[in-house]
């Protein structure tokens, strides 16, 4: 277990390889920053893979099975050399990396193709973990509870897991794929009130956001209306595409369906950081299109 030294220095008792993926270095920088910073506070050391590449995300699997396996496989090979578990906070990267790992295991011709392309053995097996896998472990939940400085009492939220953290369960290994609870447990540990609702794993439209944003606006509207019905004043995500679509397409949805909702969309790491008393939270809120600060002020959380 991690122990806070008297001089305030945290001893890292778990070290993970870290694959941020393109979104966390671009549109989802606040997810990257908050993930790194809460992990440091919680005694989890993160070591970013050197020279990692895009996993192919929402597009490689659409156009080429081989590319959709070989792109994440190169990252898995980088991680294999490090020998640590691999943290992948982006749900799309997580899903694609797990799918590639399964495909390499099942298909000898893909392993040959990997050898041919990269002139090395197929990647050594590494355990791929999501941020929720790390945060929702019982020992970690306990540690979070111990370290909470500002309980998020009164913040009514729904947990939105989206698709790729849980589906397909054959690939993700998720046990409770229709009604997951790990994020609810983390939110409860920081004193927030996660509300029950039926849309935890419904789709936000993912990669259709650019080509058919009108369809994404419809799915976003459905999710927001359901969240409001459940009594929520914010949604919490663990995926840059879910957060991105709900945040950036909320205005389009509001106009298309003549609504007046304004629901902040948080990353789970941001709320954990807020509860742990991280001093730099304001830099994260500035990145949101829909500013969460009025809600946080109203709940006396800043």
């Amino acid at each position, binding site marked *: 277990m991690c122990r806070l030294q008297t001089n305030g220095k945290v001893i890292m008792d778990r070290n993970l390889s870290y694959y941020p993926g393109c979104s966390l270095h671009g549109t989802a920088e606040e997810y990257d920053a908050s993930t790194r910073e809460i992990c440091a506070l919680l005694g989890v050391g993160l070591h970013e893979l050197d020279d990692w590449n895009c996993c192919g995300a929402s597009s490689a699997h659409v156009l080429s099975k081989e590319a959709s396996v*070989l792109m994440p496989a190169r990252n898995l090979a980088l991680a294999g050399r490090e020998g640590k578990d691999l943290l992948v906070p982006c749900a799309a990267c997580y899903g694609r990396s797990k799918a590639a790992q399964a495909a390499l295991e099942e298909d000898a011709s893909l392993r040959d193709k990997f050898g041919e392309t990269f002139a090395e053995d197929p990647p050594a097996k590494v355990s791929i973990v999501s941020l929720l896998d790390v945060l929702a472990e019982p020992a970690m939940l306990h540690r979070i509870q111990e370290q909470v400085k500002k309980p998020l009492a009164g913040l009514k939220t729904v947990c939105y897991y989206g698709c790729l953290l849980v589906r397909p369960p054959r690939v993700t290994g998720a046990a409770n794929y229709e009604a997951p609870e790990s994020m609810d447990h983390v939110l409860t540990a920081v004193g927030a009130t996660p509300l029950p609702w039926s849309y935890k794993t419904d789709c936000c439209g993912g990669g259709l956001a650019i080509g058919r944003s009108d369809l994404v606006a419809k799915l976003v509207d459905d999710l927001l209306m359901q969240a409001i019905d459940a009594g929520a004043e914010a949604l919490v995500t663990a995926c840059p595409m879910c957060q991105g679509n709900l945040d950036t397409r909320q205005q389009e949805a509001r106009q298309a369906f003549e609504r007046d909702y304004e629901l902040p969309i948080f990353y789970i790491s941001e709320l954990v950081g807020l509860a742990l008393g991280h001093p730099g939270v304001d830099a994260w809120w500035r990145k949101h299109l829909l500013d969460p600060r009025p809600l946080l002020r109203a709940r006396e959380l800043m």
Partner: protein
Amino acid sequence: MTNAEETASMESAAGEKASGVGDDSRSAISPDPSFLGQVEEIGEERLTPCFQCVKCSGGCPLTFAMDVLPHQLVRMVQMGLKQEVLKSSTIWLCAGCETCSTRCPNGVSIAHLMDVLRQIALTEGVEPAEPEVAGFHTAFLDEIRAGGRLHEMGMVRRYKFRTRKWMKDAGLGWRMFSRGKLKLLPVRIRDREWLKKVIPRFRR
């Protein structure tokens, strides 16, 4: 439409149908018996176990926008309706959420089937029913092919050249840029030799 007009249009439709009887050039469908085999081979999975329980279409979040429902698409592949399948909007509107594959009682991965159909459509030069969606995917891969990581501004530039939707999302782009979510310059990986070997390029 008034009742009289409706009757007239129904009669004329029936008349056209009657005149088409026995006329080979007016054949309504042209099944391709090899299509099922082609799809099963590329997808490495069997589609015949599907018994049309409609669970895939029941859970699909995008049926409201599709011209063919997912269970109908599977049946059409079984029947060899190749052109109808490849020209459908459905294959491009699937968001890959995997709800269908997760719930199929016969283990058919319908989301994966959509990928296979899109690949066949693009390699065989079938005009995509949703050019903006196809253009997004091809622009995305073009961008990765160049530098190994996604640079959003570069991808959007390629997307706009492919689709000619110059002004779409200009306001949103600015709001994201002003919050530092879009970077001006790409970050390229050092080891780029493999990218062109692995990532295909499509005309569309």
